């Protein structure tokens, strides 16, 4: 490579890296009074441990919170003062841990403990509801999501920040009852949504955005054809639908989960519901609810109320993510110094290669919607970065060994890279395959970390095999004493 060409490329590469560095790590600032510049790092989606999120507490029908109970007491006292007939909450509710149980669902055993047949039925139904809610949130694959039992008869759910409407999400996941496809008419055309009719639901991406694909069984297909024919007006129907078509409601219990217009008879194995979802997450919510209702053990008959939603701080500490990013920065600086001291010119090429790798990884993590970082993701980033450093060091050591045997610098670089090629490809390929398998099969934290590791491995392979080598050639065109520039030495042999 000529010197001029090399200078031009070095300047270009430096400018690209500087620009990437700027958009990636610069702290956010206001460009004008209304517009703010947000760096890529600041828009990375985080798990609950590093970024916090939302939580709610589901109260089953017949269970109220301390706050609600105190409001009832205040109403009662006001009623007493005004001499109006207001029921005494102490007569209607039984205090149990931090909640109050309605006497409609339990009796007092005399010691202030709930008991009775109705209470046993309530407990069994609550367990089913808990299992269903757990399954719904687990199938969403939230990173750092937790579903816990609070005070034995309420459910506390923590989820990370999400782009979809969080109140709609918490409400939809509380729907109870069986799945039903109906036109909701006075004399309704209906199909039960159970395992005999529906195989499952999944999210698909089409030209019109995201859709929920509902896979029907053969029985489901034939019944679905009948009801869509009736709804669209293709056959005799007593429903309210006109010949120009009607609306198909997909309901869970009494609640409408989603709805779709039907203009013709549909005779197909897979039904697509589209148009109502602005994101994959929103469509996934519907699919998760549908799938959970197909398992008989997860169909429950209990109204759950999640009227209050709270935000919470990262579980690892308020500034955990910033401090981790800063620690990474310090670590990278230490590595840069070490590589420059040990390998000089080759170290410089590594620094450029590594920075490009790190910045591209930040770009991917920030811009790919399916990527989220939690502490396991941080470990995955560290592993992938350590491998990137190792494979460059491995190649440099091979170059050193080749040079020590008496080869020229250019021949040593070629031979050194050739020597490390097979193992570098092998290791990256195996690790990428393992990452891919973990990503495809696993869920939640491991799934996200595996995706980060997979992308990190691919970037590491590209940067080790091509980018760093290219930068090395680029830098080697400049110095007069290339051997000293690369900190290389010949093997010393003693004359006999």
């Amino acid at each position: 490579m000529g010197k001029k060409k090399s200078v031009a490329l070095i300047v270009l590469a430096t400018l690209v890296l500087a620009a990437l560095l700027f958009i990636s790590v610069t702290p956010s600032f206001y460009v004008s009074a209304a517009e703010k510049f947000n760096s890529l790092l600041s828009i990375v989606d985080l798990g609950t441990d590093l970024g916090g999120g939302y939580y709610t507490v589901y109260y089953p029908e017949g269970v109220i919170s301390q706050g609600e109970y105190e409001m009832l007491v205040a109403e009662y006292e006001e009623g007493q003062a005004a001499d109006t007939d207001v029921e005494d909450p102490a007569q209607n509710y039984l205090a149990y841990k931090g909640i109050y149980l309605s006497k409609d669902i339990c009796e007092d055993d005399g010691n202030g403990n709930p008991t009775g047949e109705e209470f046993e039925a309530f407990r069994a139904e609550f367990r089913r509801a808990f299992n269903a809610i757990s399954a719904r949130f687990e199938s969403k694959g939230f990173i750092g999501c937790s579903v816990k039992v609070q005070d034995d008869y309420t459910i506390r759910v923590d989820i990370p920040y999400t782009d979809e409407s969080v109140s709609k999400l918490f409400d939809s996941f509380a729907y109870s009852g069986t799945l039903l496809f109906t036109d909701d008419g006075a004399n309704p055309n209906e199909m039960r949504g159970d395992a005999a009719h529906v195989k499952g639901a999944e999210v698909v991406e089409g030209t019109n955005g995201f859709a929920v694909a509902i896979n029907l069984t053969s029985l489901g297909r034939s019944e679905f054809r009948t009801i869509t024919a009736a709804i669209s007006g293709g056959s005799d129907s007593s429903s309210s639908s006109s010949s120009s078509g009607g609306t198909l409601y997909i309901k869970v219990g009494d609640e409408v989960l989603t709805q779709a217009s039907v203009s013709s008879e549909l005779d197909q194995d897979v039904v697509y519901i589209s148009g109502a979802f602005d994101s994959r997450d929103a469509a996934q919510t519907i699919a998760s609810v549908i799938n959970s209702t197909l398992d008989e053990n997860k169909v429950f008959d209990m109204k759950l109320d999640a009227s209050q939603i709270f935000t919470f701080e990262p579980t690892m500490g308020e500034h955990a993510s910033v401090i981790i990013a800063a620690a990474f920065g310090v670590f990278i600086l230490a590595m840069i110094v070490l590589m420059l001291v040990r390998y000089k010119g080759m170290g410089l090429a590594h620094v450029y290669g590594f920075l490009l790798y790190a910045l591209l990884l930040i770009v991917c993590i920030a811009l790919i919607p399916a990527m989220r970082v939690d502490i396991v993701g941080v470990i995955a980033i560290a592993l992938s970065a350590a491998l990137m450093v190792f494979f460059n060091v491995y190649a440099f050591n091979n170059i050193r060994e080749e040079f020590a045997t008496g080869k020229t610098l250019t021949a040593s670089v070629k031979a050194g890279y050739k020597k490390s090629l097979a193992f570098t490809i092998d290791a990256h390929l195996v690790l990428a395959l393992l990452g891919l398998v973990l990503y495809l099969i696993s869920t939640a934290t491991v799934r996200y970390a595996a995706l980060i590791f997979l992308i990190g491995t691919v970037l590491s392979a590209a940067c080790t095999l091509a980018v760093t080598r290219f930068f090395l050639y680029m830098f080697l065109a400049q110095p007069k004493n290339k051997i000293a520039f690369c900190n290389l030495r010949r093997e010393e042999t003693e004359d006999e």
Partner: protein
Amino acid sequence: MSKQVTKKSLIVCLAVSLVLIIAGAFMFGFLGFNPDSTTKDYTVIEVSDSAGYMSFRSDFREALQDLCEKEIKAEYPVSSVRYTESTSAGGVIEFVLRSGAPTEEFLTSVRSAIASSGIEGLELADVAVSVHNVVNEGYTEYIWRTAVAGGVALVILFAYAAIRFKVGMGVAALVAAVHDILLTLAVVALLRIPAGVALIGVAAFSLLLSAALNLTVLGRMRSDFRNQPEGLTAREAVAQSVASSRKNVLIVAITLAAVCVVFGVVGAIVGMDLLTIMLCTLMSVVVSTYSSLVFMPAVYACIKERSDAKRAEKAKYNYLSDKKKEKEEKASAKKVAEEA
């Protein structure tokens, strides 16, 4: 020959690992993992304001928090205090207790302390004090799906190493990976390092790290065995390759260990969960390094010794079989002659 790849060393390694894994499994069976804050059952005292006054008057919230903290800490040890805000209106100050179960009398005393505190704006807020007991539940789907993914990943690791390197190397890589995951989890259980959901991620990390480090050693062995000088025994050849790949393994291991230590120190400052997860990761790094430099080479040396012996046996010219053949031919010819 290096002491690390002798039969004796394999037996010692296997014995140590088995004892640790079995002890860890018993510990897990009896006590489970020591839960961290994400998986621990806890009791929390909630001071809530449904009127939402504390969400826009931070001075009121701070005064209320200070008062409650003083009252609660006088009776119960508090592990953390956090403020959560409602998306509609209101906020909650949560006092997570390290131990103890507050009684209704205690809550009444806190309520009266608040009522008589004279904090400015108290009449505008709607403060309620309650205690909750939160019980963690298992993450079944997450655990079994990750376990299935780990199993498939192990098969792929074995297949790749067996096809690309040698079947024996595939077996060694597989055994080492399973050993590393189990030993990491066993050590975490035995040392009672607090661990939560992220421990499953550490197990997955252990698998990836084990694959990376073992492939580093196996890759070196493959290239060394091609130019292996005459007269080296299987164990000597393995020991030589391990010695020459030690530096490479240590580069990755030390880098990752340094990351764990730095983040662990950061964790000690910002939040204990980060420290404990880094301790778990450090265990994984130590186990994988030990496994790739000591355990896996000892396993592979055994395999190689046997396969080399078999190959040598096959390569021998079998005089005995020639004589046997001659005898059989003679016998059959005699038989034919007798029949005729």
